[in-house]
Every structure is written in C-alpha cells, then in structure tokens.
C-alpha cells in the first residue's frame, strides 16, 4: 500500500495527537461534574446499591464503581503518626453499623472515578479503548478493551477494575445512559441526604457552578496533576484520605 504525502502527514498528525493526549472529543456544550459534601454523607450505602443495580455489577463481589470509605482516627502528635483505620463499603452489606468507632475523628468519604481531564488511564491504554467525551466524561470502549490492566495500576484513585463477568475493565461512566435520557446518575438519585450534587459546570445557573463560585473546593491528590472533575466539599481538616 502506497501513501500519498498528504495521507502520510495527516495520519502522522493523528497518531501524534493520539499518543500525546488521547482522543478528546471537545465541545462547547456541557461539562458534567460531581460534588460530594463529606459532612452530609451518613454511610448508608444506598449509592453503592443503586450503582451496582444500575450497572449490573455483581452485588456480592467486593468491587464497585463507587464506594464509601469510613475512617477511624486516633489522633497522636505529631499528626502524621496518628493511628488510621479504614473500612470500605462496596457491597450491599454495611460494615459501618457494627464497626467499633473508638477514634477521635471519624468520617465517611464516598469515592468514585474522578473523570480526570488529564487521565493516567487514558494515557496508558495500549489499544486506545479509553477516551474523553465532549461532556468531560472518561469512558471505556469495552469492545476494544483487551483487559491488560495497565489502567488498573495507573489509576491513582483505585477507581477502575476488571469486571468479573465481562473480563474487561470497568469504571464509573457518570451513568452516561441516564444522562442521555435527562436523568441524573444513579448514586445521585439514590442519595438520601443530597451529599452528592451533580450538574453542568458550563451552565452559570446550575447548583454546581454556584457552589464552585462561592465555596471551598477540595480535590483528591491534586499534587499529581490529573485535574480531577469530582470535587469535594468540607474535606478541609481531614488529612488522611488514601
């Protein structure tokens, strides 16, 4: 097969673009973000049940697209020497109810895929199965994914895993199929205390852009430069987040 000069240059440009930045479908339309108010989370686990029901993840397996971490901290001085215990809720059984909360500081932190705008999982994927949509969501093309687990090791938030039945990687999609129907993600729909807030950041009248303008926003691991799109509220003094 012979290439003309024009074809060669354009294909090289496309390949370079793909290698450097991954495929990014840009648009001026919408940009979805989630905000999580840590003080409002009560650790009931309704979001985990909703997510696993919605996305057909086996309920009894200890994997989930979203999960809740409970921290029990006995404070020592200097502060980094405190004793930290972490309990994880990622099935329909709630480990928080019978846990012995004897620490000085206790809190819940719901976690999910941060939909980074500079995502390590997109950069490392050898078959380019991961891509950014125009709404700022990172998706996995499960027809292209070969299950090599590079993204599982690359993700600094531990938000991606191998689906036990489909044998390809799986992660939060912000419930893309629900967004297309005008619904909110399942975890946001199921949260009884409105600890999860979801919306379009490009719309100046939405709740998320109001909060972004007026309140303090915290990110998980901001120092590694992944530009996460899941924002945390009231995380301030909670130093221990793994």
């Amino acid at each position, binding site marked *: 097969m012979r290439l003309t000069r024009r074809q060669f240059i354009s294909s090289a440009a496309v390949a370079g673009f*793909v290698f450097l930045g991954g*495929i990014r*479908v840009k648009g001026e339309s919408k940009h979805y973000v989630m905000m999580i108010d840590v*003080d*409002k*989370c*009560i*650790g*009931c*686990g*309704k979001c985990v049940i*909703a997510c696993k*029901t*919605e996305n057909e993840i086996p309920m009894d397996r200890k994997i989930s697209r979203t999960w809740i971490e*409970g*921290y029990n901290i006995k404070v020592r001085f200097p502060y980094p020497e405190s004793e930290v215990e972490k309990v994880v809720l990622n099935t329909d059984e*709630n480990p*928080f*109810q019978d*846990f012995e*909360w004897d*620490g000085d500081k*206790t*809190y*819940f932190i719901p976690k999910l895929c941060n939909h980074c705008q500079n995502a390590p999982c997109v950069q490392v994927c*050898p*078959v*380019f199965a991961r*891509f950014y*949509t125009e709404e700022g969501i990172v*998706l996995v*093309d*499960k*027809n*292209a994914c*070969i299950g090599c687990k590079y993204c599982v090791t690359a993700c600094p938030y531990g938000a991606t895993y191998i689906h036990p039945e489909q044998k390809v990687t799986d992660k939060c*999609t912000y*419930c*893309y*199929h*629900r967004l*297309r*129907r005008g*619904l*909110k993600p*399942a975890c946001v*729909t*199921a*949260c*009884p*205390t*409105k*600890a999860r807030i979801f919306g379009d950041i490009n719309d100046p009248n939405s709740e998320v852009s109001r909060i972004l303008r007026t309140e303090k926003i915290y990110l998980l691991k901001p120092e590694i430069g992944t530009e996460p799109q899941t924002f945390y509220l009231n995380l301030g003094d909670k130093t221990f987040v793994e």
Partner: protein
Amino acid sequence: MKKPIINSLALAIIVIGGLMVYVFIISPPIKAEFISSWLQIEASRKPEYAGNEICAQCHEDIYAQLMSQKHSSVPCEDCHGPLYDHTLDPEKRRPIIDDSRESCVLCHKKIPPRKAVGTIDPETHAPEFKCITCHEPHKPWFK
C-alpha cells in the same frame, strides 16, 4: 553457551512482535466511528432508577406529603426499590414495601461519623416495636 541467549532473544522478539502485530494490525484501529458506535451502545442501556420527579407525576398526594417535612430529601426508590420498569408498566414491576427495623436503622443507627441525620440507639429505643408503629416514613414526626 550461546544458544540459550539466542533462544531467549528470539522468544522475546516473537512475543513483542506478536504484541505489536496485535496492537497495530489485528486490533481495531482508532476511528471516530468506533467511539461513536460505543457511545451508542453505552447510551442505549436501560436505566433502573427513575427518580423522584417521575414518581411525583402519578403519586402527587404522597409526594406532597413527603416534600412537606424532614424526609423531603429521601428518594422514593431508596425504600421502594429501583422502579424504572414500574414507570413503563405499573402492573409488571411492583414497589417493595420494606417496614423492617433494619431498613430504618441503616440510616438512623447512632454511630459517631453520622452527623447529618437524627440518630437513635436501636438497642434501647423501643426494641420490641417496628419503627412504623410511631413514625410514618412519609411524615416521620409524628404519626
């Protein structure tokens, strides 16, 4: 002495070459149409949870009662199960009615990190009664 090195080198070249052939030739190349086809597959999945706004369209009375007090932020489907199918065909999928103590205690047991809701100790707070004896879930304070 030399042979094992050559053999292992050949093996490495075969493995890496095979991987390269798979990645760059056999596996589907990246084109916009592949991604849009996956977007269609992803978008065509059926939801399970409907959301409060859809429930309110038919069940106006109970929704107005729910919105009038402290449980106003609690979604219907947290207690009644996922009900998107119920909105399509109300007879086919019936809502769950779970009035056990365990389902209330899931949010209202007193544990230290739980600050945003009112909590009780289920060991001492009327242990022999169901919660719905005194508290109506759609208007919990009081029956």
